């Protein structure tokens, strides 16, 4: 169990799964760079978060709900948590996370949502079987089942996150195609940083001729 002081940002899980170096740049080095994609995401979220609570008969909706899990050592906010009333009149939480763009092949978005579900389970002492991701470009919800595999991946990612962010070392970059869509490419310098003797060769070239 973690204490409140140890809690890390839930959204960092996504950064970790996308790229451990990006995660360290954001959360260890506190570098933040916005690009078109992050700006679009921010605007989308601002829109979601300005809506007030509304309620329909069997569904209660909470916007921008604070969440935490001492077991995973995470805290954050859920864009939307719908409370669905069950036949026995109890309420079942159903988290919905807004994302710009379209569904991704990898687990990053699903893990973030699953972490929200795990927080809800711990805080409300219940079981959350399902949630949804809302993709701006598709304009519709994609349901996500919190099965054993996703839960395991999420818990393991939370563990790795704590390991990474308790140190001071930013992992070396590994250049790949997705670096081109990363808002950190100019801070990270994936093609230059981490190579041997780059600067030494440069200096020789520039000064000794």
């Amino acid at each position, binding site marked *: 169990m973690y204490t409140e002081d140890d809690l890390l940002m839930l959204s960092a899980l996504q950064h970790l799964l996308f790229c451990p170096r990006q995660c360290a740049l954001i959360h260890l080095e506190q570098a933040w760079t916005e690009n078109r994609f992050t700006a679009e995401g921010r605007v989308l979220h601002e829109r979601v978060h300005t809506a007030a609570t509304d309620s329909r008969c069997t569904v209660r909706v909470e916007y921008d709900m604070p969440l935490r899990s001492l077991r995973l050592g995470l805290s954050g906010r859920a864009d939307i948590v719908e409370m669905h009333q069950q036949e026995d009149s109890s309420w079942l939480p159903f988290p919905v996370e807004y994302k710009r763009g379209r569904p991704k092949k990898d687990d990053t978005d699903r893990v973030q949502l699953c972490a929200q579900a795990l927080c809800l389970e711990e805080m409300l002492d219940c079981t959350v079987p399902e949630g949804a991701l809302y993709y701006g470009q598709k304009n519709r919800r994609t349901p996500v089942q919190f099965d054993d595999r996703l839960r395991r991946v999420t818990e393991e990612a939370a563990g790795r996150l704590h390991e990474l962010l308790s140190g001071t070392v930013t992992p070396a970059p590994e250049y790949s195609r997705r670096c081109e869509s990363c808002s950190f490419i*100019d801070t990270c310098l994936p093609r*230059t940083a981490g190579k*041997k003797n780059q600067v030494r060769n440069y200096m020789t070239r*520039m000064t000794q001729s």
Partner: protein
Amino acid sequence: MKKHLNTLFVTTQGAYLAKEGETVAVRIEGKVRLRLPVHTLDGIVCFGNVGCSPFLLGFCGERNLTVSFLTEYGRFLARVQGPVSGNVILRREQYRRADDLDFSARMARAFINGKVANCRALLNRTVRDHGDRLDSEAVGDAANHLTGLLKSLGRGRPLEEVRGTEGDGAHVYFSVFDHLIIRNKEDFFFHRRSRRPPLDRVNCLLSFLYTLVMHDVRSALECTGLDPAVGFLHRDRPGRSGLALDMMEEFRPLADRLTLSLINRGQLQAKDFVVSEGGGVRMKDKARKTLLTAYQERKQDVLLHPFLEEKMPLGLFFHTQALLLARFLRGDLDGYPPMIWR
């Protein structure tokens, strides 16, 4: 991608800046003379008697825009800035490394390498472009001398020797600087560097441009999360921005080049300056505006960054160099590559 944005320089005495929606409104004698959207700016520099509404200052802090206040003649007074950016891990590393004299000497060698190489490039280029209009032999000899100094800046040279090389380099370079002035020579000449106050027009221009470059270098370091006060070549002294001075070395020839082109293109004349009783030289308002505009335009020029081999506006080079320094301190690079142009 970090963008190169404009700096708003306000030189009109009595001007007042205020926030209007998402814009900065410049009021002169109660009338709004200029409105600029905040997202097109990365800083505001106020010269002399220029006021700013507290609300605008707060807004700039929130938007990561630094507002600096300088005297009418460009001496730095104060700045208002948002929350300290960057991280404590980087700054601690910077402090640890600055305490290590061997490491400091290594950094100092890199900065001085950059400066001397860029001075040499400026000399060579002037000979190439205007060889027939100046003493190209003297200038060429000076460039060769600088090449010798670069060779002597090898590994393992301690800090004191690097300082010596820097002094030699500056002496050789400035001893031929007067040759590089090829127009209005009776009004624009250079014998030696004088700063407090500048005793001739050329020194007046150099000092003012160095202040502008200093401002940009310091902001770039702060933006990256480095502490501009803790330097390697320039050791700690209260009130001095050691690291900003360190990193400025490689950019000085840039200011020198701009000074020369303003003179050699005839954009500035003797009448644009005032000589005071004690011999100190100051620019008139018009000259200051010409110079600020030229500097702003120069920063828009797109050049190939020699180390990253990417094209970017010159104004972004300050930021890129600060970033490369941070990357080196964090262990991602095998050294600090100063910006060296050919």
